[in-house]
């Protein structure tokens, strides 16, 4: 048990900031992101024998945090679409969080957002993403394609963004 706890603490020390930043990009509110990530790590420790064997334990934590976020919103807002009012404070401090692309990412359906975060931010391959999300690889590819298509619709092309900046 002590050995396991040491392992977990090492994992936590190495992964906590990176996981927090990824979740912060996805939810926009720093305090909520901290709560979600702390909760996800709590669950990770409770399921440590399973999580330590996972091909991407950080992805497990991020995914659990994002799922908890969906659950929180369901409980409190009951299907009201994810709003932007809770993102203002963090966006003020971290201007990157306010970019049109990040805002569009937050508007994506949860599955598409998760796939984009795992594939493009955590840089997981399709197979590991599929395993983390419990879906076939083909579904990952299809969510990625649809998510990118939605971002393309919502956000000006990067070269236009460059001009805007």
């Amino acid at each position, binding site marked *: 048990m002590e050995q396991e706890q040491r392992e977990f603490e090492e994992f*936590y020390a190495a992964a906590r900031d990176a996981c927090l930043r990824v979740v912060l*990009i996805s939810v926009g509110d720093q305090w909520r992101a901290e709560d979600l990530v*702390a909760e996800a790590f709590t*669950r990770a420790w409770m399921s440590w024998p399973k999580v330590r064997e996972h091909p991407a334990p950080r992805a497990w934590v991020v995914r659990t945090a994002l799922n*908890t976020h969906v659950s929180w919103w369901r409980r409190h807002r009951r299907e009201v679409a994810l709003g932007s009012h809770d993102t203002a404070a963090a966006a003020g401090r971290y*201007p990157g969080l306010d*970019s049109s692309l990040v805002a569009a990412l937050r508007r994506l359906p949860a599955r598409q957002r998760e796939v984009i975060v795992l594939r493009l*931010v955590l840089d997981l391959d399709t197979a590991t993403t599929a395993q983390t999300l419990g879906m076939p690889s083909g579904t990952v590819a299809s969510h*990625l394609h649809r998510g990118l298509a939605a971002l393309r619709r919502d956000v000006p092309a990067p070269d236009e963004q460059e001009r805007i900046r």
Partner: protein
Amino acid sequence: MNDTALSAAVRSHLTEVHDSLSTVHLDIPASEIVARARKRRVRRRQSALAGAAGIAACAALAVAALLPGSGTDSSTGQARLAAWTVAKQPDGSVMITLHAVRHPARLQQTLRADGIPAKVSVNRQEVENSLDVPGCHVYPLGPPDGAAGGTPEALWQKVFYGPHMNVRSDTFWVYPSAIPHERGVVIVIHYGPDKLSNDYRNYPVGTDLGYGVDSYSLYLVNATPKCTGS
């Protein structure tokens, strides 16, 4: 721009944003996370014991229901199981309190017996699109004017909460008089992906444990025999 180029551009932008957050740190010590998990385990064990007691009580109730002159008391307009309570109110509404994901079919039957065109569905949270309720056309909570086939928020409030504000998270109402013509209600009870084992089935709805039932969603739907029974 094709998917490969677009995904490279998106990756590069998100990486830039990620890197710009280098001053963001999670300051919670590992010992606090471990302590939190320990408390959670204790609560889980306590709830599992309480759940076992609930099952015993439920079994006793089921036996009692088979005996003449006992069981669910329709004279008080109450149907009560360990998993949920349905209580008719003097103003014609029905108050529903969800305790656990059990006996959804009986909950549906009880609501229909009270004249509410209703469907009760249970949904693993992994199945993201809870709007996909087989046999039903769901009107999601939509913009205030109800455009694009949605349910205006004011109507949703009127049907499921009436005048009630700041209520317990495990309780809602159905006001049959507020349900529009040819519409019914769908209640989707969600439980998370970690709750597949029997250990987790008895957690109460609305608790903030993150185990057992996580939440529920309430929708208006087209009332049809296949969806809402009438």
